[in-house]
């Protein structure tokens, strides 16, 4: 076994070094908590960057000194760094995919959500507003955003919106249906609002849950549904 050897030497810091690192970690944590309560930093959108930088520094402090990655064999560092990098990539990728980094008010301006929202701007929405004399009962655009962001696509398909579940009915040609709620109610805006307010109260046992929507959200969703081609 010619290639067998042992790389066992590690230079660990003295106990006083560990105490210094602990002191720094505690100070950083105290700064994090203090920063959390400084309201102007929230307003200026500086809270997240500051907290993330402090968090990374604490991460490096524990990994580098307490876990001895700074002094230990490089292979251990490679193992851990690979895991951390892959984990970070997965988190960022999933957050981007689900619009967490891309919605208004989020760190990065819209990419995927904007594309989804743009994809469903249909002539039907204008036609519906025209039918109501330019005074829609709700804002179809806001209803469409609500539909996408709150995950209605988990159960329903709506034309023009990428992806959609099949647990609930497909909402294509919604305005042309004679009835809603499984044939229980005539398809009128008032009945749609009644249904969205509390589906189980209208039809006990329905899979559609009570989403505790506000009156405004209900009106917007109703407008959106009638705008679908």
């Amino acid at each position: 076994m010619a290639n067998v050897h042992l790389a066992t030497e590690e230079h660990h810091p003295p106990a006083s070094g560990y105490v210094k690192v602990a002191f720094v970690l505690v100070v950083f944590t105290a700064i994090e908590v203090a920063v959390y309560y400084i309201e102007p930093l929230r307003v200026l959108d500086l809270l997240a960057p500051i907290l993330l930088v402090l968090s990374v520094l604490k991460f490096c402090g524990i990994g580098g000194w307490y876990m001895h990655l700074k002094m230990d064999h490089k292979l251990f560092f490679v193992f851990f760094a690979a895991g951390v990098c892959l984990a970070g990539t997965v988190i960022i990728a999933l957050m981007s995919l689900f619009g967490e980094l891309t919605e208004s008010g989020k760190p990065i301006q819209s990419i995927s959500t904007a594309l989804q929202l743009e994809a469903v701007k249909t002539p039907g929405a204008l036609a519906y507003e025209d039918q109501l004399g330019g005074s829609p009962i709700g804002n179809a655009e806001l209803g469409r955003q609500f539909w996408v962001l709150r995950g209605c696509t988990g159960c329903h398909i709506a034309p023009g919106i990428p992806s959609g579940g099949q647990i609930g009915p497909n909402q294509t040609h919604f305005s042309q249906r004679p009835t809603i709620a499984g044939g229980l109610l005539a398809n009128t805006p008032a009945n749609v609002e009644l249904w969205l307010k509390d589906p189980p109260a209208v039809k006990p046992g329905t899979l559609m849950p009570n989403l505790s929507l506000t009156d405004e959200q209900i009106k917007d969703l109703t407008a959106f549904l009638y705008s679908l081609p």
Partner: protein
Amino acid sequence: MAVSAAEAPPPVIQHPPVAADRTSTGLNHRKVLMWAFLGSDCMFFASLISNFQVQRGRSLNPPYPKDIINIPFTSVSTFALLMSSLMMVLALAAIQRGDVRGMKIWILACAFLGALFLGGQFYEFTGFVQSGLKLSTNLFGASFFILTGFHGTHVTIGVIWLISVYYAAARGRITQKDSLSVELAGLYWHFVDIVWVAIFTIVYLLGT
């Protein structure tokens, strides 16, 4: 000029070259395995943190994070966990210089702080349930309990591991030459701490 203990050169640790250590990499199998596990465990927590982030702000029913999360209380828990990591490295330093008694004291202190953290988490979870937040209440409840609950499970395993090391040392089964056993327990414990650093920032400070 006299050199103080704090300024003394760092000790050189020699793990004895036993047959079990012989590998093609020249590194101890157990330590390589532990680091490989920790690297893979990062992915485990990445999936749970991603889940929390993706569901953030999408709960339709109260209670919402801002209603119930208590930052001062969790800050104290975080302090306990950070201090436990200090106890852990001091335990390792003690066993590496042959001080078994010192190692036992530090490792017991570490386990105590870990248990204190777990007690805090139990208290926090109980309060949340009483406030109406359960696993099935809303997306926040589901993602929060799963993420912090799995971290708590890791801490529980860590505390059991630390107590096991203590008993092994108490029975004379861990001496200076077995410092690697303490080091491996320490690596796991520090990983638990490092994950909490991320959770505290993402879930508690940024999530509210």
